[in-house]
């Protein structure tokens, strides 16, 4: 079998569409599998323990099949269109939101060669496509012909635009330090740079970009419209905002998009700040392999998964602890606190980059 892969014959007869199908399946797995894992681990179980209850226990051992039950439930439900809804836009909105999630996943590297696309402007692309979801949310809010949805959609638009800026500015510090916009090269930089001449753990940018990392987490939380920034869906005020009128399959799409996007942002955060798919260099030195040896193509996804779970833990921890801001307080927080702080971070990083 290995001999077959090694022959030129195999690669010449490898049809063009096989590669596409392989990538497609991997993309779906890369988006849906972590989403399911975090929803079960955090949304169902961790939160239940925080709230002194057990969570789902009946479906499967320890409730582990609950997610399948939920999906099945949503698939069975009637696909309701509100009477005065703009049907086309209403139907398209969940797909647009989900599209942004999949586009985001495209540039994340999972190993030295395990990438969907190795874009030179990976960071730029990721941050650009993450805003596509705003269009979907606005479409959903407007087309639902519901006042609650409209309020939710408009709140979402205002909020996502305000928090796009600190998100980008927080990442600029990393880009300056790595000297590249390519996500793969950012991972390389974190492994090959040293902190004050000590390179055993490489230079994961969380250490030098702590401020940027915190701003990134806050902005991502707002970008995901999670508590304390969940005004667009505010269950106790707007009754789920732009999602109010959705049911069944389309609601499921919003649900998947919400949690999958959380994971993809965590993947992005892990790549930018926690060293991406690589393990600390002293570990690979111990095993006697290069930090980017081909074996990392297999280990990398699991390393990423671990780092993603660490970051999403923080997201959900905050989500189920804090009350929510008011819309004007959120805008004040973005423009008066986060943006000046991230600009300061950029200035300091630039000075250090020039001096050292």
């Amino acid at each position, binding site marked *: 079998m290995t001999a077959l892969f090694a022959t030129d014959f195999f690669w010449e007869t490898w049809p063009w569409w096989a590669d596409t199908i392989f990538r497609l399946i991997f993309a779906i797995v890369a988006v849906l599998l972590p989403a399911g894992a975090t929803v079960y681990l955090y949304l169902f179980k961790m939160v239940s323990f925080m709230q002194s209850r057990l969570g789902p226990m009946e479906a499967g051992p320890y409730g582990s099949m609950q997610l399948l039950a939920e999906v099945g439930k949503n698939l069975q439900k009637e696909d309701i269109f509100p009477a005065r809804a703009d049907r086309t836009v209403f139907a398209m909105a969940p797909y647009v939101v989900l599209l942004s999630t999949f586009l985001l996943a495209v540039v994340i590297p999972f190993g030295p060669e395990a990438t969907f696309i190795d874009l030179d402007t990976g960071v730029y692309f990721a941050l650009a496509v993450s805003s596509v979801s705003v269009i979907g949310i606005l479409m959903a809010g407007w087309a639902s012909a519901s006042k609650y949805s409209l309020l939710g959609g408009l709140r979402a638009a205002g909020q996502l635009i305000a928090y796009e800026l600190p998100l980008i500015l927080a990442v600029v510090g990393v880009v300056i330090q790595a000297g590249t916009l390519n996500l793969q090269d950012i991972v390389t930089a974190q492994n090959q740079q040293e902190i004050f001449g000590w390179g055993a753990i490489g230079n994961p940018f969380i250490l030098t970009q702590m401020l940027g990392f915190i701003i990134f987490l806050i902005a991502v939380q707002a970008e995901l419209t999670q508590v304390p920034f969940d005004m667009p869906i505010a269950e106790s005020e707007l009754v789920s905002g732009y999602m109010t009128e959705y049911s069944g399959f389309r609601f499921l799409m919003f649900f998947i998009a919400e949690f999958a996007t959380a994971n993809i942002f965590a993947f992005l955060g892990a790549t930018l700040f926690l060293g991406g798919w690589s393990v600390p260099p002293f570990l690979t030195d111990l095993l006697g392999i290069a930090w980017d040896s081909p074996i990392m193509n297999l280990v990398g996804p699991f390393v990423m998964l671990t780092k993603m779970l660490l970051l999403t833990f923080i997201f959900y921890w905050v989500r189920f602890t804090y009350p929510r801001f008011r*819309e004007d307080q959120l805008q004040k927080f973005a423009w008066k606190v986060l943006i000046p702080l991230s600009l300061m971070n950029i200035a300091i990083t630039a000075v250090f980059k020039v001096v050292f």
Partner: protein
Amino acid sequence: MTAVSDRRQLAYIAAQAADARVNVELEAEGMTLNIGPQHPATHGTLRIVARLDGEQVIEADPIMGYMHRGYEKLAEVRTYPQVTTLINRIDWLGSFANEVPFILAAEQLMDIEAPPRAQHIRTILFEMARIANLTLFLGDMGVQLGAVTPVFYAFRDREHILNQIEAATGGRFHPNFDRIGGLKDDLPAGWVAETKESLGHITKFCNLMDDLLIGNEIFEARTRGIGVVPADVALSYGLSGANVRASGVDWDLRRDNPVGLAYDKVDWKVWTHPDGDSFARYWVRLQEVRESVKIVEQLLDTIPSGPIMAKVPRIIKVPEGEAYVETENPLGVMGYYVVSKGGLNPFRVKIRSASFSNMSITPWLLKGTYVPDVITILASLYFILGDIDR
């Protein structure tokens, strides 16, 4: 009446300014938003019709009566002991507290006084009903502001109190335990010690809420200066209970007029707050739960011996006359005006429930606020729908 603090005065001026601004913009085309009758923030079927300009409320109009059950009329065709089963369902979170003023009014008409032991246990159960009711408010305020976790702690810790109420009365929510002339039963064996233990959970819960909500910057930002009710406005709208005490009015019927209840035998304090905003209302209720725990603990140590039932005829006929008794219930002042024509059933019962009067301030209070603040204000005014629509 206490002096008006600076912050409250500023907030009041701001509210007046908002009022004036709204009056100018009344001509503008607005959106009418129906909050309720089915909306998570209205805990039931309250409906608030809000005219919005953007997210600002120009005009808010509470519409009540979606759950009106006609208790005043129903009481007329029931005998006196049967009425308590009805009025248990008015404020369904602190049911025992609903029975007490009615029974006291009937006792006043019949010129019967419950024996000291019965009065004592009545007070204990009354305060436990208050704890059960307000504990849920303390957690629910978090949910209204977006923090879902506190309410689960509230449900968890309230269960200990409900268990004790159930152990003593047989009913978790609707005890129906109070009788004219005393109580249905004596306390079961070992109840006092168990209740003391369950009160420990409530003390811990209060400290937890102090950390989780009172000490949270976002909670403060969302509640401070929101829904400011000056003392004179509060009194003129007929607010009562913690809502009026949060505006700095030192008025508590438990201390000022403890008819037929044993409040004068314990050492406790009436808390007030000068600000009159949503934060003050939450804070006052938190202190009130702590005081209730103190009251119950002291009462448990000093239960007098003796009968729990006075001498009462088997068939209760109330002599002709009128009586009005009001007590300080968890939601505010609750009073029963009972008119008797000497028969088996009351001729007329008028129920003065706290939430109904508390809701009357909403059109004034919600004017000029934003949609998220509407939810904060409604939550902090704390109504139970059964108490509005009786």
